[in-house]
């Protein structure tokens, strides 16, 4: 009974979220340096646009929007996984320093290889992933104490510290960069969605498409892991193994997203919370909704940033932080 009730709610929320995403999508497509009227937009989508309209829509805006949506999904699901397995509502790949680790590998890469090479785009997510993985391994080990396991607040605290350290290292490395590379990197750090080419979409898409189904398939495991540890063991789940697999996936999702979207925090924090408020904590319903909300938030932030200041815009990462940090504070005050 309860189950079918939740299912109904999930479906309704999903439809509503889709409509909202579509609305933001239309606004985002239409606004920018050159705004397109709805008529122009419709014409271009149907294939009857002028070459200029075609270029703006298919060459610049659509790929960027696709990247934003994919990155939003990746970050939100990653945050949802981290929150469930650490049982800590304040977990987020940005706050935990995983994104900083990914950024460190990216700056290392930019330092030693040129950004023009064609393989660059496909290698970047991989490098980011290695960085994120190493960082999360270090954080996990530092937070682990024999007999106590991983205490959630300590985990967050150590993550905050790690993020500060890595940002210091990033700053040192980035001052060694050439002017052009530095500009690229500074924008990356601020969380400016910089990919505006279909190749970026292709670089990110496989990660999201391969990993999301795995996460959804593990919904029941996540449900159980979210309970108390001894309950979980009692239910016959190999806690440590499942937890490690899921951390691995969470890191992969956020690193790949971050590698094309730039350093964006707080999406992974907010989206799961809002989703949980809307449809409750069962992962079968809550994960897809969290993914949708992540996409809505990031696309919304990117659009706001672009509308506020033409043509360069305020990086989405900054907009997200200005919205997300007060939310974090609210959660702290409430909990």
């Amino acid at each position: 009974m309860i189950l079918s009730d939740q299912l109904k709610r999930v479906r309704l929320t999903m439809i509503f979220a889709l409509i909202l995403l579509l609305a933001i999508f239309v606004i985002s497509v239409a606004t920018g340096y050159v705004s397109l009227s709805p008529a122009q937009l419709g014409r271009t989508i149907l294939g009857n646009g002028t070459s200029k309209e075609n270029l703006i829509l298919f060459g610049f805006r659509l790929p960027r929007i696709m990247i934003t949506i994919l990155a939003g999904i990746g970050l939100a699901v990653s945050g949802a996984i981290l929150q469930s397995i650490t049982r800590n509502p304040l977990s987020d790949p940005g706050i935990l320093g995983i994104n900083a680790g990914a950024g460190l590998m990216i700056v290392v890469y930019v330092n030693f290889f040129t950004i023009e090479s064609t393989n660059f785009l496909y290698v970047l997510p991989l490098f980011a992933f290695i960085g994120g993985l190493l960082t999360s391994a270090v954080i996990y080990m530092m937070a682990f104490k024999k007999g106590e396991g991983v205490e959630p607040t300590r985990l967050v605290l150590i993550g905050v510290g790690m993020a500060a350290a890595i940002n210091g290292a990033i700053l040192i490395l980035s001052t060694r960069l050439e002017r052009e590379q530095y500009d690229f990197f500074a924008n990356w750090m601020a969380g400016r969605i910089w990919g505006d080419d279909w190749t970026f979409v292709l670089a990110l898409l496989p990660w999201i498409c391969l990993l999301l189904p795995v996460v959804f398939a593990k919904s029941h495991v996540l449900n159980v892991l979210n309970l108390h540890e001894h309950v979980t063991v009692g239910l016959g789940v190999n806690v440590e193994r499942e937890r490690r697999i899921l951390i691995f996936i969470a890191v992969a999702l956020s690193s790949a997203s971050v590698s094309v979207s730039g350093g964006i925090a707080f999406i992974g924090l907010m989206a799961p919370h809002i989703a949980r408020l809307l449809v409750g904590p069962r992962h079968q319903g809550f994960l897809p909704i969290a993914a949708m909300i992540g996409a809505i938030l990031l696309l919304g932030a990117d659009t706001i940033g672009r509308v506020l200041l033409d043509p360069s815009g305020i990086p989405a990462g900054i907009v997200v932080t200005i919205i997300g940090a007060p939310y974090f504070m609210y959660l702290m005050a409430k909990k």
Partner: protein
Amino acid sequence: MMMMRNSQLKESKADSRPAIGTSILALGFILLMGSIVLAISVGAANIDFLTVWRSIFNYDSTREADQIIVSLRLPRELGAAVVGAAFAVSGAIMQGITRNPLADPGLLGLNAGASLALACVFAFHSSPSYLSLMFVSFIGAGIGAVMVFGLGSLRRGGMSPIRITLAGAAVSALLSALGEGMAIYYKLSQDLAFWIAGGVSGTNWLQLKLISPVIGVGILIAIMLSKELTILSFGEELAKGLGQRTLLTKGILMTVVLILAGTAVSLVGSIAFVGLMVPHVVRFLVGTDYRWIIPCSAICGSVLMVLADTAARMVNAPYETPMGAIVSMVGVPFFLYLARKGGRKVA
């Protein structure tokens, strides 16, 4: 809870080691002189120690080396020393008041608040006077502090160190994102970027003349109140029981913290971890008596900052590396150690 009480009892007798304290002060002073001379002599143009000595005490404006030293390098290194002392003392005071081993003006949002305030000034005023910058960054630091402590104490049960640290992280993220947004919106990023990352490269004598007395007075007040601070650090009830007016003491000390941190940030930008590390090391050496911790922190902070600035110029010569980055690379392992050690007791 029981553990807390035990450790409180254990701590409630000040562990004072005057002999070590005096030797740290003396040694620190010699080290400071040495590191300033070292810092002045290395750089784009290497100048040997003797010349440095001669030009400081026997200045001759016709010699080129003398000019480099007196107009560029000396104010810079003195600035680093003054600022280092300010950060270290404000960290020590904060740790004493909040009894939080992780307190540091950089981590608790003070520096971010000051940075945001400065970004606002730069946005609306093309060439602000240095005095107004100092004042504004003091206000900004105050806003940051109020937000963090307000947020930390909102919930019943009060301010645990971890809550304060998390609140600091969130407030810092928010304030620096706002600052960054302002910088981009008003196209200030070129002016602000390096400054926010932290450095003493532009320090001149005028700035030094303005900040030194302010910081000096701040540290002096801190030293005068250090006995009260020692009592306060044992716990508020104890301090009240001993007849201290805790609210007044806390208020004065917190104002001192804001003045010190705000002034320091207005000169070098946001630098974290100096205020965290130095008092800890000092406390380890001289014990829990703030009459020794504060002066020793001041001098050790100076040495640390001068060395950090030297490193910042050497690491990637001839380019300068942001000093804040160097300090946080050293400071973070320290933070992690404290977080791991303190995690259970303070949670």
